[in-house]
């Protein structure tokens, strides 16, 4: 398969790009919901429109009412989301939770997937327990209780947790905190008793929860996949989420870079356009190179994941780390090259910097993933 978008994928990119620019743009979405103090941090109307576009169920199998597409296609939508800084539940619901639910029972699929496809429902994932992403250590426990389980523990960085109709929760059903085995994934409904959210607005205006489970009663039907065999589902969900986050990061990087290049072509100082200065030209060209490479490896990892290739996991970590570096460079150079105006809230470049910071941290930063590359390579 050549490493560029097929004709169908290019058509999808065209329509996603037009739609997100028209409906998902910064003024209409991010600033609107931020300035209005919206507790969800995103708009349900747009979520419904995304459902009408067929986006919400892209990764859902056709048999379950979705489009049965892959990570390349989801990445196309995410790149446009990133470019427009569009707040939406797409990544958590349509990528992460949808991937987990692929491993769920027909009953679970029937309960949750129609709402996702129609844009009625929003899902969240609860994996992290400390301030850094470390999924190898799961301390939240689900004890056997009657026919079901009782969930106790605390999760953090649960993006849109308080707004979600269902949370995918990674919990320990056996073994010690750092054991590979003994993990089980649960689909926890929003109205579960003894679950509480401390919702906090983040630097990028998204909302994430510290979520507490204080003896939450769940029946056996809430289990996604096998009891004690959840690591495989968790890994699949994380791989999908990581490459999705990378794709959104590529969009953020390209958005910030394009805005910056445009700006240095207009801004005049010392009687000339500042884009004529070689000091800026070389930095801009270096940035361009890094962003192109980040995009290439992201598409590569998407393709490998869709093929089910063995190297998909390695390349996903390579992509997540590379995008974090490239997008980080794009937003930092963006603010610096904009000068004073880049520090103002009125100008959008700072919003790119904020979003990038959140995406870098989500599901493992560059250090986490570079370390993972070394681990997987045996050094």
């Amino acid at each position, binding site marked *: 398969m*050549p490493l560029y978008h097929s004709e169908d994928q290019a058509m999808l990119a065209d329509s996603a790009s037009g739609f997100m620019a028209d409906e998902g743009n910064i003024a209409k979405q991010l600033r609107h919901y931020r300035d209005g103090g919206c507790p969800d941090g995103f708009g349900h109307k747009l979520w419904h429109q995304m459902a009408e576009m067929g986006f919400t169920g892209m990764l859902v199998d056709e048999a379950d009412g979705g489009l049965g597409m892959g990570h390349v296609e989801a990445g196309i939508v995410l790149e446009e989301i990133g470019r427009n800084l569009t707040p939406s539940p797409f990544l958590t619901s349509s990528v992460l939770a949808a991937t987990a639910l692929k491993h769920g029972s027909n009953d679970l699929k029937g309960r949750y997937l129609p709402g996702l496809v129609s844009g009625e429902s929003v899902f969240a994932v609860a994996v992290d327990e400390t301030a850094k992403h470390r999924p190898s250590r799961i301390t939240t426990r689900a004890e056997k209780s009657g026919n079901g389980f009782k969930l106790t523990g605390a999760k953090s960085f649960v993006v849109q947790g308080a707004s979600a109709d269902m949370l995918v929760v990674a919990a320990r059903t056996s073994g010690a905190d750092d054991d590979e085995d003994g993990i089980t994934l649960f689909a926890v409904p929003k109205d579960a008793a003894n679950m509480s959210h401390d919702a906090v607005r983040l630097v990028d205006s998204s909302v994430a929860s510290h979520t507490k489970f204080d003896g939450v009663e769940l029946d056996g039907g809430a289990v996604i996949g096998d009891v004690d065999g959840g690591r495989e589902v968790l890994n699949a969900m994380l791989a999908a989420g990581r490459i999705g986050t990378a794709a959104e990061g590529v969009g953020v990087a390209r958005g910030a870079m394009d805005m910056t290049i445009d700006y240095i072509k207009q801004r005049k100082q010392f009687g*000339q356009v500042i*884009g*004529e200065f070689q000091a800026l030209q*070389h930095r801009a060209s270096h940035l361009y190179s890094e962003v192109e490479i980040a995009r290439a490896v992201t598409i590569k990892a998407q393709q490998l994941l869709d093929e089910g290739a063995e190297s998909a996991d390695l*390349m996903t970590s390579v992509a997540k780390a590379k995008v974090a*570096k490239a997008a980080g460079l794009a937003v930092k150079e963006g603010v610096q090259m904009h000068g004073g105006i880049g520090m103002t809230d009125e100008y959008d470049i700072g919003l790119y910097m904020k979003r990038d910071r959140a995406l870098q941290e989500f599901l493992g930063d560059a250090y986490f993933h570079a370390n993972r590359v*070394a681990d997987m390579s*045996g050094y």
Partner: protein
Amino acid sequence: MSDLENFRLETREWLEANCPAEMRKPVRDDDDVYWGGRRATFKNDAQKAWFEACRDKGYTVPAWPKAYGGAGLSAPEAKILRQEMAAIGARPPLSSFGIWMLGPALLKFGTEGQKQRFLNEIARGEIRWCQGYSEPGSGSDLVSMQTFGEDKGDHWQVNGQKIWTSYADHADWIFCLVRTDKDNKYKGITFMLFDMAGAGVSTKPILLISGNSPFCETFFDDVKVPKSYGEDCPGFVGEINRGWDVAKYLLGHEREMISGMGGGERTAAIGTAMKRHSAKTGDDLDPMLRTELAMFDVDALAFTAMAEKFMDEMKSGKGHPAQPNMMKYVGTELNKRRHELMMSVGGSRSLEWESEETRGGAPSRDWLRTKANSIEGGTSEVMLNVISKRILELPGA
């Protein structure tokens, strides 16, 4: 079975029958590959047999037309041959600047007579060429070059000096940029072809920091360059005073070639091998060095994907025409970083300049050699200028 599948089987059989075992070992030194030329000698019988078999089959230049010494392979056939050769680790049967540089220029700009003569000589390894571009005062600013050919009717009288002429001391002929109009910067250069054995040509090897001398200074002192070598065979490529067009085409071709190597061994991940290496010398990988290796591997593996995307886009005519400049910039910078890390992992052993264990100081010599990667064929700074101008379209670039 399709024709291509047939071709693959035939090729596999032919290689099995014709590529000696010694020619399937990795290339370690320059003379492990035959470079051809009037003064060339074979390192051993296997090298001779392998070269002659390929020459007779047209496989020294498989994609060139049969009339010019090639095998006339289509692009998919040539790819299959490359794959099958790579599968058995076959060395190139013949290397030369004639194959990589002058050949493509003649195929695009040459007359029929030039193609018949020079391409056949290149394909058969009879004439070894070198490239006369840079001058002491004209490196990145190549077009400022001043080696001058005075028009003497049926010939030019050439005076001047070239530098960084690769293997000029081993070459038979030179393709050389010579100024033929002092008043016209870009349209005053002619792409000349002439014999290095002629009167007035002398070469002097340049000792590099690596201790090797792959480059020379080349001096021209009243050298007589004929305007014609016979019927339909001019002593220059393209038109008189329009040699810059040919030079530019070749520079682009060179960058493409360098960037096409991006997916190969030069920039692949190194962490695993470095861990093995340090275990062999009884050392532990310092945690900070491990971090650097991991960050490098991220960049190297990401670049491998970029190289694949670049090649796929080139083949299908997508992608920006100035993209090779970006690939050259990133690929060469990565290779320099790679060798810095290899030196650090190697420790004091990698400082050895002459020992048997280091095959004559290969780690340090290779490390020093890589410093030229971001200078030769267009410096990193020039690559960034080109990206600024042609891709980002920044003003005044």
